[in-house]
């Protein structure tokens, strides 16, 4: 074994992380090489000193301050999503919604999707289930508006279920039922986005999917590259009020990129000047994204420039704003739905959902 090889192994050797074979060869070399022994002593001494470095202790009130800040945040989180006890009419509507949902599931378990669509179209003309469900939805939306300013205390489980109509009802009337137009979603005003740089793409994707599955969020995934880095774009369809929390969770997976990072990540040797960023979007050099996706990426850049704080503000504003009447789906869905679908009708409950556009980039 040569001195250079030994030198490379000494760090692992002091941690007893060398293989048996390496250890033997290393020790044989050390027995006769004074220089390498000296180097080994140096590593050991260094480790010893590092182990004994003095570390300060946190102030006494550290955990109390954490607790206080948690309480403050908790209040903020809860004020964004109002949880109320519905009025009497609400309970009736909730029961109706439950029944409609149950009958929907019952029907779908007997009919193929094609048959079901036909029967749905027929029913649409008869206006029976449609009226019932839309009526319910309208009522839910009314409560939300009416009771926006009332107290937010009663957080009983039943109340939660009933006052979260879109999450529940959408299962029954949502993706499976209507298809009229296929359209790829570009990141519009109802999108939130984030760039996340990760060490391992596959692990990060698994985590994102984990988060999505946990909350039963629908997602679509597109692969491509960002600059010279491999990247995946995941679009999650979420409730607006979920956005801030989800962004936090998703951004915890890797390293969130800000504008300066984006210049690095775009794979250009000379980083663009800050002034360039205002004028031209940073599209990936070797992009494999479609035009539509490029368009989305421009939007992503713009959002990034708005900064993190602004994004949180935006998220809150969005949460409070009126529901969009459009709901579109991308291809390559999550396991649940196999078809490309889009629903463009008025007063669809899922219309309140927004797209959360996450670009996951492999760190070089």
């Amino acid at each position: 074994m040569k001195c250079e090889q030994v030198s490379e192994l000494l760090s692992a050797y002091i941690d007893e992380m060398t293989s048996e074979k390496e250890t033997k060869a290393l020790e044989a070399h050390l027995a006769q090489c004074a220089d390498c022994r000296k180097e080994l002593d140096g590593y050991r001494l260094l480790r010893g000193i590092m182990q004994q470095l003095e570390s300060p202790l946190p102030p006494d009130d550290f955990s109390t301050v954490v607790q206080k800040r948690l309480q403050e945040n908790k209040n903020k989180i809860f004020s964004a999503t109002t949880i109320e006890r519905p009025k009497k009419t609400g309970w009736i509507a909730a029961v109706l919604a439950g029944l409609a949902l149950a009958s929907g599931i019952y029907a779908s378990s007997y009919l193929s999707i094609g048959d079901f669509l036909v029967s749905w179209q027929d029913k649409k003309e008869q206006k029976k289930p449609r009226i019932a469900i839309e009526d319910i939805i309208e009522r839910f939306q009314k409560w939300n508006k009416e009771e926006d300013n009332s107290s937010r205390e009663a957080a009983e489980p039943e109340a939660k279920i009933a006052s979260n109509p879109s999450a529940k009802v959408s299962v029954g009337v949502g993706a499976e039922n209507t298809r009229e137009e296929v359209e790829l979603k570009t990141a519009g005003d109802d999108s939130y986005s984030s760039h996340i740089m990760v060490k391992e793409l596959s692990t990060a994707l698994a985590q994102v999917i984990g988060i999505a599955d946990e909350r039963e969020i629908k997602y679509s995934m597109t692969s491509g590259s960002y600059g010279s880095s491999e990247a995946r774009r995941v679009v999650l369809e979420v409730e607006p009020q979920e956005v801030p929390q989800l962004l936090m969770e998703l951004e915890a997976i890797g390293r969130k990129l800000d504008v300066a990072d984006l210049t690095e990540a775009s794979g250009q040797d000379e980083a663009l000047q800050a002034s360039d960023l205002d004028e031209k979007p940073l599209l990936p050099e070797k992009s494999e994204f479609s035009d539509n996706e490029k368009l989305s990426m421009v939007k992503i850049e713009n959002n990034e420039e708005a900064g993190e704080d602004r994004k949180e503000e935006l998220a809150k504003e969005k949460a409070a704003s009126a529901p969009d009447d459009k709901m579109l789906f991308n291809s390559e869905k999550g396991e649940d739905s196999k078809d490309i679908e889009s629903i463009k009708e008025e007063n669809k409950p899922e219309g309140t959902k927004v797209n959360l556009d996450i670009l996951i980039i492999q760190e070089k």
Partner: protein
Amino acid sequence: MQSEQELVKKSMEGDTQAFEKLVLQYQNKVYALSFRYMGNEDDAYDMSQEVFLKAFRSLKTFKGNSSFGTWIFRITTNVCLDELRRRKRRIVPLSLDEAAVTSRGIEVEREIVDPSPPVDRVYEQKELSQYIQGLLDQMKPEHKAVIILRDSMDLSYEQIAYVLNCSVGTVKSRLSRARSILRKQWVERELLP
């Protein structure tokens, strides 16, 4: 006395009292780790606070693949290194272990302005700590992290791999490189044989 697992479970359900117990259990280590990364107590305080707030928010993503302690070290490392990188971009990027490239494209060793006291001085423990901290602060964040996690926090290679989200092989080679850089600086200053 509740077990850590019970505390984690309750915290996941939003129990801030249970979470405070976890904070008390780990605050010294998180604070010490943040201090090593950031190099001063003010930043260590801010970062540690951020770590626990972030941990509480992200508890749902904690799957129990690692211990809670390792998981919180991972968050600490992410929070601190992100902050260091953010700052580095604001200031002129410079790290000791990155060869400077001249305008003609030739790699040269960086010249380091040595702030250290004369070599024959006897170091007090506190001074020595400060001095080493100064050297660590000039290292690349990923090299700094691997040395700190291994030597100061006494984590295993597997735990470091989890914290840094990389393979054990990467930990091994990165640690070797980082230690070699640090040792050379010490030898140059005749602090090591």
